[in-house]
């Protein structure tokens, strides 16, 4: 496990918002290339006149991922910018940092969710960071048996148990994390999403 200490005087590394930190395990950035517009997917110039596209499969017409299409969906820039500002997590290319609190701890931490690919890794990271034991998740019992229960605040402002929804859904809706003491968390395991 790597711990990277960065000096505040390190002028050559400007990607991270935090300058001095104890890095989390495996915290290197590798972002997939994002195509900024559709021209990369354009039909080849050898096509002339009308082209018949079948519904099923048209290699020159593969729908690009939503994020990669310029100006789609047709929402005005002002409205899009407002949404970007509203997101409490910073989803820029350099990471997805969320606040993490633990009941009883004197201060909060910040964690980059993008470095984790699964709940197992996330729980491991949390355990490392806060020196606590969270244990294993089960659908029926939540984190029964452990002293600490990981919860998160979702987009609607509700506090949810970590682990119930698919990882991708969790990543896109998690605004912040809170590690609750299990005595406070009774009843949380029975939450229905």
């Amino acid at each position, binding site marked *: 496990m790597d711990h990277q200490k960065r000096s505040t005087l390190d002028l050559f590394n400007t990607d991270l918002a935090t300058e001095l930190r104890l890095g989390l395990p495996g915290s290197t950035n590798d972002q997939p290339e994002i195509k900024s517009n559709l*021209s990369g997917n354009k*039909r080849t110039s050898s096509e002339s*006149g*009308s082209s018949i596209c079948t519904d099923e499969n048209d290699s020159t017409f593969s729908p690009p991922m*939503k*994020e990669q299409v*310029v100006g789609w969906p047709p*929402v005005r820039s002002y409205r899009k910018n407002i949404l970007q500002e509203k997101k409490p997590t910073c989803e820029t290319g350099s990471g997805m940092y969320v606040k993490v609190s633990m009941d009883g701890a004197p201060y909060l931490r910040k964690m980059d969710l993008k470095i984790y690919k699964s709940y197992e890794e996330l729980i491991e990271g949390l355990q490392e960071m806060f020196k606590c034991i969270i244990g294993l998740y089960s659908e029926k019992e939540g984190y029964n048996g452990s002293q600490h229960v990981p919860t998160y605040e979702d987009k*609607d402002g509700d506090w949810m148990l970590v682990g119930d929804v698919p990882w991708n859904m969790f990543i896109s809706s998690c605004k912040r994390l809170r590690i609750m003491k299990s005595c406070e968390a009774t009843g949380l395991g029975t939450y229905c999403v």
Partner: protein
Amino acid sequence: MDPAAAGVEFIGTGADPTRSSTLPEEFLKRTFSLISSEKDRSSVSLVCKDWYNAERLSRRHVTIRNCYSVSPEMVAARFPAIRSVTLKGKPRFSDFNLVPDGWGADVQSWLNVFATAYPFLEELRLKRMAVTDESLEFIALNFDGFKALSLLSCDGFSTLGLEAIATHCKNLTELDIQENGIDDLGGDWLSYFPENLTSLEVLNFSTLTSEVSFDDLESLVSRCKSLRVLKVNQKINLHQLQKLLVLAPQLTELGTGTFMEELVSGSVNDLENTFSKCGNMHTLSGFWDATLLHLPVIYPVCGNLTFLNLSYANIGDVELEQILSRSKQLIRLWVVDTVGDKGLEAVGSHCQLLEELRVFPVDPFDQQIGVTESGLLAVSIGCPKLHYILYFCQRMTNAAVITVAQNCPDFTHFRLCIMSPHEPDYLTNEPMDEAFGAIVKTCTNLRRLSVSGLLTDLAFEYVGKYAKNLETLSVAFAGTSDMGMEYVMRGCPKLKRVEIRDCPFGDSALLSGLTQYESMRSLWMSDCNLTMNGCKKLAEEMGRLNVEVIKDKDDDVSLASKVYVYRTVAGPRKDAPHFVVTL
């Protein structure tokens, strides 16, 4: 066709030569000065030469929907007495970053002519124009009686330009700045309104981001007794809103600031009380970060509301229900899809008078479901008067839209945006052709249509066959061949504006509209299958069209990836940047 927009000179059939007397010009002018509708004025001007003259001499307002369709000199020559101008520039898809910077639509060339021709100009409303600070200062200094400035979706200026307006326009009644791409360099601009300016009736700075001096705003609101529209920005909090409302209970339209505030309960009561004194309020907007904690302050005015814009408030169905159950008079409602289908059920059950609904996506790129077909259905059942819908969703079904069409046959504007390109009916996996077919078949008054989802040429065959009143059509990621576009171009006689992106329509589709383009305002086609040759052919056949290709340096030289075609009497643009090629 609006001759004013096209700038087409009328060649009159003249008066009957056997008649010895005609109505005196002064009489005609006075009569026509009572006609405000531009459509009516257009008709009037076509009757005969005398009427044409009387109309043009008495006209006070002109709308130019495409700034390149006519030159400012032509407008000034025809209409000498104009006091109010509405001017629109860039193609609508520039709102979605499809038009490169520096494309044009600079207002200054118009202002230069207006300064001499219309020194008494009072109102200027600009949409999608390029406006610089220098231009704003020019307006402020060259038109003594200038009263009303409205900038919507414009770009190129900063708050410095607003300073100039505030400083010099002594009779300003309206300043309406909305959704522009501007450099917000700070909130000082508002402080430039002089102490003796008391004429303001409309002030909208809701989309500016920086803080203004609250003291100066308070003083302004206090001394402008005729203020009826006030829309502040997010930086104004509830405490401050309270102070402003106390000073201006006469407001008819209010845009609040942020609702995120820890108000002590006494203050909440105060605010609710203050709202209860606003008996004229019929329009509300703003509501950033609103929650049920403080939303109740608006309850006293809900009963009178006709337009409620909650499109910046990410509220859920519970909050919406609370508001709507008190807002039975609503005619127009804008919400975010966080309200979900449940929220739309509340719309259906409370808002019987609703005529317009817009549902915006909270996150256009999120995979999460916001609203679905059942929300749309619920609204169509509960709101029989609905005629305008803008609906962003992740998924839709043909069956639902067919039912919606039957429930609401009076649609004039149907804009459905299924956010994933090529998305089929999610239940049957079929194209969405039948959905839009039903809309055009049933809604005979349909004027505006935006289609989405997986669509074959059949959808367009329906449009061409049934949408006889269609004026505006937006198409993206749809169709299977040139026939799609041909059906529309041949079938819809009243088309005015067509915008197409990412469709497999090629040169023959483009050329199929030959006879239509001169009666249309404009055609936009981007990322279709057009070639330079096809566009050249169009340009050769139609002399009074500007056929412009926006070149991308990554383009194959024979391809025309962005094409903008519009009728004009002003000839090719003289201000085209290097990447715009007029053929």
